[in-house]
């Protein structure tokens, strides 16, 4: 959301990147009729040269995915790595039948999609929505930089607004009061705007698409605000700072809406002009977004560094977070899976988080995740406790499909909310189990390994809930020590008790853990690795590479021989204690 700050004057300018001349011409013709200026490129390489030479020159990029020389995804990687170009909205053209394209695209930061063959009306409304969103975010960013506020000292308060202008003012002020305000401003803006336009004024999704395409959106909002039945309607925002969390509860005076299909997994969403707002807000800004029925109230949570509680404020622990409920039911269709998959990937540790943990603890951590054909429920995480201790965990929900994926969101929310005993694996698992047992439907459960690596003590202290055992290999000797993963699965009974176990660690040791897919997934020859095979594969890998080993190299023999698609999600984590 940085960008060069200023807004370009004059016509809106689009860069159209496609290797097929016909496609370029169709898009250009349509955009020109609608008043856009256009520049074309035949592939990613040419597009890059154009953008690099004139980084401030474009308001939107229309990108084909498959092209010679540099394809769409390669160009995305370059754009996202460049501060000058990062926030230009990109609209990717893809075939309906290629959900993987959308998954890859969302992961690369593409929030707008156009299906082929091209629908003229949709082209114009998606381009208009992308340009409009960007302008709005930019204005908010500029406001944000100007504003300073005493709200950072606020622990709680209630606000009311009615118009878009009021919403924007409040957005900027509240965002300033929080960490990551540059991102938060986008999310709050989406949530507040939704409360006015959809909540109080009843503008439907379809109407908004048409209004934006016709450039009448703002006007329509003004008109509706003026209607007698809407004059008394307001949006109420409650702001609370609790511990290291900031909570925004936003309530409008409308009828509510079918929030389930907006925030999470609406199969139609990726290809329509907008409606990504909520999902995008979630992705960019909030640690949790929770709608309350009938959908006219939403709770958004921001956690983490910089969310300080001023002295004297209440620090009582928040209640159980309600992550999205996971209804038992039939396997979802591929579109649901696609978006659930994207959201599940977002829960995995990001590169910068891993790098920070490495730097802080002096360990070298690497993780691997491959989805099965229909989504499993794997998740892993790390958390440095101090300069010599690292929490590492790996969980796997039973079952497949959207249900399992949604359970991972629930687990993720629970884990970040349990304060006590993070360095006490058995207590931590017992507490997590207690909370999950109240929340999961019968027959659904999680297996988990949770442990603390302590470099000063030279030990990995862990507890397990029916997980494959952790393995420690000493790189000097090749000695393997296989732990014990037995324990009651999480969520089955509230009375679950977990045992603390230990594996000795020395400098040069490699700790490896993986989900059960590694031992159980058949290989091309039909046999699976089994627990013994996993330990042997890891041992051979460490003998070959020593402390240079990482999760990819250790898994390589399996990845080369596994029968695809995988029957279950595969997740693996490797922590190396380098020799000084």
């Amino acid at each position: 959301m940085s960008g060069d700050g200023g807004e370009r004057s004059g016509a809106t300018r689009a860069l159209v990147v496609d290797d097929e001349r016909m496609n370029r011409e169709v898009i250009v013709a349509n955009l020109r009729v609608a008043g856009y200026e256009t520049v074309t490129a035949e592939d990613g390489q040419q597009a890059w040269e154009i953008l690099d030479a004139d980084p401030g020159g474009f308001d939107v990029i229309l990108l084909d995915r498959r092209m010679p020389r540099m394809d769409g995804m390669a160009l995305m990687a370059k754009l996202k790595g460049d501060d000058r170009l990062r926030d230009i909205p990109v609209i990717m053209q893809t075939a309906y039948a290629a959900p993987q394209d959308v998954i890859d695209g969302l992961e690369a930061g593409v929030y707008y999609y156009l299906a082929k063959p091209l629908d003229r009306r949709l082209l114009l409304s998606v381009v208009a929505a992308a340009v409009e969103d960007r302008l709005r975010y930019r204005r908010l960013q500029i406001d944000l930089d100007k504003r300073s506020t005493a709200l950072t000292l606020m622990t709680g308060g209630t606000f009311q607004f009615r118009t878009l202008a009021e919403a924007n003012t409040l957005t900027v002020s509240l965002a300033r009061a929080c960490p990551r305000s540059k991102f938060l401003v986008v999310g709050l803006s989406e949530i507040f705007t939704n409360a006015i336009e959809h909540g109080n004024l009843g503008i439907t999704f379809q109407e908004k698409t048409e209004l934006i395409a016709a450039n009448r959106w703002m006007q329509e909002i003004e008109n509706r605000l003026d209607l007698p039945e809407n004059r008394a309607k307001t949006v109420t925002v409650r702001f609370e700072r609790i511990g290291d969390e900031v909570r925004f509860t936003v309530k409008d005076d409308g009828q509510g809406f079918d929030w389930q299909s907006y925030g999470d997994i609406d199969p139609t969403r990726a290809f329509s002009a907008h409606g990504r707002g909520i999902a995008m807000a979630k992705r960019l800004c909030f640690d949790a977004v929770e709608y309350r029925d009938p959908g006219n109230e939403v709770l958004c949570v921001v956690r983490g560094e910089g969310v300080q509680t001023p002295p004297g404020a209440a620090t009582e622990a928040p209640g159980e977070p309600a992550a999205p409920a996971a209804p038992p039911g039939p396997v979802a269709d591929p579109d649901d899976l696609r978006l659930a998959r994207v959201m599940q990937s977002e829960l995995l540790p990001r590169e910068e988080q891993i790098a920070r943990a490495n730097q802080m603890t002096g360990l070298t951590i690497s993780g691997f995740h491959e989805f099965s054909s229909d989504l499993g429920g794997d998740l892993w995480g790390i958390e440095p406790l101090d300069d010599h201790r690292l929490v590492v965990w790996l969980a796997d929900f039973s079952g497949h499909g959207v249900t399992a994926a949604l359970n991972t969101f629930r687990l993720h929310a629970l884990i970040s909310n349990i304060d006590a005993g993070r360095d006490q694996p058995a207590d931590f698992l017992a507490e997590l189990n207690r909370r999950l047992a109240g929340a999961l439907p019968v027959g659904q459960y999680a297996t988990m390994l949770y442990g603390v690596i302590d470099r000063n003590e030279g030990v990995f202290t862990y507890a397990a809930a029916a997980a494959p055992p952790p393995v420690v290999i000493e790189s000097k000797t090749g000695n393997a020590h296989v732990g014990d993963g037995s324990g009651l699965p999480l969520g089955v009974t509230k009375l679950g008790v977990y045992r603390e176990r230990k594996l000795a660690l020395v400098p040069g040791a490699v700790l490896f853990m993986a989900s059960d897919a590694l031992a159980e997934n058949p290989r091309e020859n039909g046999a699976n690795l089994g627990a013994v095979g996993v330990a042997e594969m890891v041992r051979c890998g460490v003998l070959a590479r020593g402390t240079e080993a990482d999760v990819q190299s250790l898994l390589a023999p399996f990845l080369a021989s596994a029968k695809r698609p995988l029957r279950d999600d595969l997740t693996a984590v490797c922590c190396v204690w380098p020799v000084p």
Partner: protein
Amino acid sequence: MKYEIIDGAEMPTLVLRDQLTFSDREQFDTVIDKLLARKKPVTAVDLAGLDYMDSAGLGMLLTLRDRAERQGAQVKLLRPKGEVSELLALACFDSLFTISPA
């Protein structure tokens, strides 16, 4: 999954063969209905012919246990072997079910 329900004098026994995996969920639900319709205080599940069970299979056993308990009934697991036995041990199912080796 292949199955058979044998009505013994004391209890019905569900005999499972081959595999019990995610794809058997719906069928297993109807099997549970049939078993519990017999209203016996104990229901047995014979696992001797079961070669493989995945995590969803464990979940199905838990569902059976839960629904039986709500009727005040118990579930016994009989003769698990090989990987199935290892999986039950890993998940400490002996603390949830009576498991008989024979």
